[in-house]
């Protein structure tokens, strides 16, 4: 049974989320603030954490930063709208994804499932996302068995997104991965390559979804 720790200061939100998750066979533990949440995580070693960004006293971002000093547990951020900068900060500080309040249960459960399916390990030479397969050994990509002609930059871009399939990857994270040595602003190049990639993936392959002001997400069509 998967263990989840919920850190939210609203008792009703905690109660409801815990009901929803228990009905999906999760073992749920609740914490009302950052320090007790961190304690729960340290003792229980959960499989995932739901973390509200708007906590009193020690805010969600500080909790996350503290947590990432000693744990790699998948973290799903719960946030309200119009907090894009804060979401990006949380994602870059090591959060795995976010949902925006008010969110639907289906969305929450889907995100939670995706972040628990950890990144494909580096040792594994093949990544699949829907009908897309990336062979890292030969730098080859194929869509439903047909080989895709990609430039090295496109391959590296698709690799970054596919490695985190279903999860948001911030613009900054992509740029640092694909253009590690470039100091100049690569955001324009990123959009151009994404546009090319989308054309090559067509409508049958996984879709690259843009989340305004945050990043891209590769989803199975």
């Amino acid at each position, binding site marked *: 049974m998967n263990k989840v720790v919920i850190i939210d200061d609203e008792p009703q939100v905690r109660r409801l989320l815990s009901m929803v998750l228990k009905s999906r066979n999760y073992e749920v533990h609740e914490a009302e603030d950052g320090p007790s949440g961190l304690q729960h995580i340290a003792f229980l070693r959960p499989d995932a954490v739901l973390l509200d960004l708007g906590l009193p006293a020690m805010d969600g971002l500080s909790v996350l930063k503290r947590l990432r000093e000693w744990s790699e547990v998948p973290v799903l951020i719960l946030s*309200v709208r119009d907090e894009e900068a804060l979401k990006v900060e949380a994602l870059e500080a090591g959060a795995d994804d976010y949902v925006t309040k008010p*969110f*639907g249960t289906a969305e929450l459960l889907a995100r939670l499932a995706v972040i628990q399916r950890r990144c494909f390990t580096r040792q594994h030479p093949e990544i699949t996302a829907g009908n897309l397969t990336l062979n890292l050994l030969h730098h080859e990509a194929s869509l439903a068995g047909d080989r895709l002609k990609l430039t090295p930059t496109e391959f590296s871009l698709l690799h970054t997104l596919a490695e985190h399939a279903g999860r948001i990857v911030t613009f900054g994270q992509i740029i640092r991965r694909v253009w590690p040595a470039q100091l100049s602003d690569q955001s*324009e190049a990123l959009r151009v390559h994404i*546009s090319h990639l989308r054309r090559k993936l067509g409508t049958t392959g996984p879709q690259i979804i843009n989340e305004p*002001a945050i990043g891209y997400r590769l989803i199975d069509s």
Partner: protein
Amino acid sequence: MEPDAATRKESDSLALVAQYSGALAVVFSVATACRAILPQTGYLFSALMFLMAIVLAGTRWHRGPVILMAILSALTWNFVFLQPQFTFLIHNPGDLAVFALFFIVALSMGHLTSNLRQREDALERHHRERESLLAERHRANLLAESERLHRTLLDSVSHELKTPITIIRTALDGLASPNPYTAEITTATRRLQHIVDNFLGMTRVEADALRPNLNWEELHDVIRAATSPLEEEFRSRPLLISGLDSLPLLKLDSRLLAQALSNILHNAASYSPQGSSVEISASFLANSLEISVRDHGKGIPDGAENAVFDKFYRGPDVHAGGTGLGLAIARGLVRSMRGDISARNHPDGGACFTIRLPAQAAPLSP
């Protein structure tokens, strides 16, 4: 040099000229007055009178005029009051000693008093500068504080309002049974959420809290972000999109533009019959992006083309559930990006809203 500083310098030099002439005038008047009463007072009295005049002048005037006055006084005293009169000669050794002392005392007096005054001036100036600096800082602090307060208020209100809606939605999802009452609560919750979003949006627009964050974007992405929250509204209204493929990458704030577009689309869906299409078209010309949204509803009442963007404007035959804020917010958002928005009736029927936005096109285009 700033005009202010130039005039100040000019008035300073005028004051200096006045002080020099004043010095001459005072020496002349003291000499005349003392000369008149010389038989009653003796020449030492006049020396003391000169010294007093120098001390007084030193408390108000610049160093230059005061030193000039000291020298002039010494010479005048020698010339007018010391024997032999009306010559600069001094025969009596006692008088010579007095004259030397007078000269030294007059110079030092002038020097000391004007020094003192300068120090006082500097102190006062320093004090004034400090005070204006403090006032400036205080004003800046107040401004920052009020902005911070405003934001905190918005954030906490938005948190307070959204939490119960989240709870209701999650609880409804949990019910899951096909119950007609549940469907009604779901619809009402959506409506409530729309109202809360609109009020918060309006507050943000009015608080001037929008800071456009420009990035290279594909308009496809903006339109997707604008339409995805409106799935329900466009389930029964086909959405026809044209003109996007020929667009370059554009530098714009996709979040603000998507929100503005979303509000216009929501309005189009609210005022057009089920089954009728809504058309979005876009073009880019001379650094200006134009996006039009056309519906097949009744159109805008005559003369209300501007009024539809007013806060709380409602059409004559309104549908229930609107706040009258959607278009006002859309206009606020577009204006924050230095663009504008207009409405007109399409010649073939239905309303047509057009957003015009200055935008930079990318040199490398896909």
